[in-house]
C-alpha cells in the first residue's frame, strides 16, 4: 500500500516539477531583450569631422559613445583606433562604476564622473575613484573613415585579446 502511495506521490511530484521548470523557463525567456531590441544594435559613425581634443557624443544601443580625436602631440596608447591617419579614442561613455556619464574637461584632458567622483584620462583609463576598469571600447569594424559599431573587425579582436577592454 505504502509503495503504491509513494509511487503516486513521486509521479505527481515529478510532473509538477517538470511543469514548474517549463514555466520558469518561459518566464525567463519573456524577460529576455526582444529580437527587435537586439537587431537594432548596429550604428555607423563617420570619424572624419571630429576635431582634436573635442568630445563628440554619438548613440549606440541607447548608450552614449564618446569619440575623442587625440592631438598630434599626445602620447601614443594602444587603446586608440587609427583611421585614415588620425588617432581616435572611441569608448562607451558610461562610467564603469555604476553607469553615469562622465564629463570631458578639455583643459585637463580628463573625464570626470559627477556621481561618485571617478576620473579617467584622455584614453579612458581610470586614474582616480571607484571605477574598477577603463572605459569600455564598443565592438567596432573600420570601414573607410567610418566605424560600424556592433560588428567586430580584426582591430577590435586584437584589443579584446590584449585585454584592453571588456566585451560590451
Amino acid at each position: 500500500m505504502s509503495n503504491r502511495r509513494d509511487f503516486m506521490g513521486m509521479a505527481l511530484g515529478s510532473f509538477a516539477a517538470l511543469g514548474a521548470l517549463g514555466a520558469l523557463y518561459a518566464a525567463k525567456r519573456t524577460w529576455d531583450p526582444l529580437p527587435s531590441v537586439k537587431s537594432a544594435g548596429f550604428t555607423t559613425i563617420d570619424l572624419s569631422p571630429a576635431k582634436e581634443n573635442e568630445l563628440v557624443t554619438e548613440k549606440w544601443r541607447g548608450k552614449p559613445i564618446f569619440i575623442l580625436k587625440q592631438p598630434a602631440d599626445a602620447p601614443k596608447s594602444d587603446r586608440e583606433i587609427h583611421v585614415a591617419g588620425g588617432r581616435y579614442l572611441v569608448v562607451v561613455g558610461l562610467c564603469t562604476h555604476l553607469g553615469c556619464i562622465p564629463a570631458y574637461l578639455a583643459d585637463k584632458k580628463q573625464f570626470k564622473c559627477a556621481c561618485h567622483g571617478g576620473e579617467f584620462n584622455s584614453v579612458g583609463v581610470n586614474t582616480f575613484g571607484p571605477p574598477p576598469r577603463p572605459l569600455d571600447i564598443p565592438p567596432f569594424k573600420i570601414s573607410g573613415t567610418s566605424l560600424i559599431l556592433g560588428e567586430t573587425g580584426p582591430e577590435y579582436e586584437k584589443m579584446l585579446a590584449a585585454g584592453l577592454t571588456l566585451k560590451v
Partner: protein
Amino acid sequence: MAHFDEKAKPFSHKWLNERMAVDTVKKVLSTEYWIPKDINFLWAMGMILAATFGILIISGIFLLMYYQPDVKTAFDSVNYTIMSEVGYGWLWRHIHGVAASVVFLVIYIHMFTGIYYGSYKRGREMIWLSGMLLFVLFSAEAFSGYMLPWGQMSYWAGMVITNLFEGFSPTIAGGVANFPGFVEWLRGDYVPGQAFLTRFFMLHVFLLPLAIIAVIVLHFATLRLPHVNNQKGKEIDFEEAAKQYKHGNKKESKVIPFNPVFLSKDVFVMGVYFILFFYLVFFHFEFAMDPVNFDPADGLKTPAHIYPEWYFLWSYEILRPFNKDLGLIAFGFAQVAFFLLPFLDKSPVVAPANKRGLFKVWFWVMIVDMIVLTVMGKLPPEGIWTIIGLVAALVFITLFAVLPFITKKEKKA
C-alpha cells in the same frame, strides 16, 4: 455533521455563526486579543503603517486610471494629464508621493522602537524577520514607483541600481561573480527603455503590492502568539491577566483587549498623524518631489548629482566611499545587517536599551551613525564629506560585528 438551525434567518448572527464561527474569529482576532497596558504611543506605529499603506493603495488606484506606461507618454501623463487636466489629479499624486516618503519615516520609527525595547527576540524573531521582509518589499515598491514618471532621476536611478546586479568586477576570482548579461536581462534592453518601464510598472502596481499584502498578513500572524512587547520587556501571563480582565478586574489586570480598547488609542494617534500627514500633502508636498525628476528622461545626459530619496541615503552612503567591489560587499552587508539582529544579540534580556549597559551605547551610536550616513549621502562626494562618510560606513559595519560580543557579557538585570 455540525448542527444547523433550520429556523435561523439567513445572514442573521446565529446563521453566520453556525457557518463561519464569526464569534470565535472575532474573539481571536480582536476582542480577546490581549495587549499589555504598559505601552506608549510608539506601539501605534503598526496601525499607522497599515493606514498609510491603505492610503497609498487608494491614491494609486486613481493615478492608475490616467498613467501611461510608455516611454514616450509616461512623463506627460503624470506631469501634464494627471497634474493639470484630471480633476483633483494633483491631490492623488501629492498624497501618493508624500505617503511614499512618510511611510519610510514611520517604518524607521517602528523598527527602532523594536530595537530599543528588544522586541525582536525570545519568541518574537519571526515578527522581526517578517517585518524586515516588509521593509525590503516596501523598498522595491518605492524604487519601482520612482521609475514610473520617467524623469531624469527615474532613468538614472534605474541605470545605477540595475547596474549593481552586474556583480563583482570580472577580475575577481576569474569573473565567477560577474554577470553583465543579467543586467540586460533585468532591463530587457541594453539601457533602461520601454521593456524596463513596463515591467517595473507591472511590479509596482501588481506583483509587489500583492506580496506586501501577503507578508502583512504573515506579520500579523507572527504577532498573535508571542503578543506585543511592553515598555519594561516583562513576560506577562496573558491567560491569567485575561481571566482577571474578563472577571471585571479591569484595573488590576495587566492587559486590555485589542478591540475596542487599544484600537481607540491607535485611532487617536492616527488622528494626530493624519493632521501632520495632510499638512504635508497640502502645504509641503515639494519635499517628496525631486525637481530633477521634472526633466524628462535623457539617456545622453546624466544629472550633475545623482542621489536617492532620503530613506535610501544611509545604505547608499555605505556603498559610496569604497571602490566598486568593496562597495558592493558593504552595500550587501547593509541590506542584511538588520535581518541578523535577533541572532547577533546574544543576550537573553528583553528590556529597554537604556537598562542594558553597553547595548545602550550601541543603540544610540547606531541611531547617530544612521543619521550621519543619511546626511552625508545627500552631500556631494567631495573633500571632508567623503572622509566623514567613510568613517560612518566603517562604524556601521563595526557596530554589527561587535554586537555579539557586547551582548554576550550582559548580565541579567
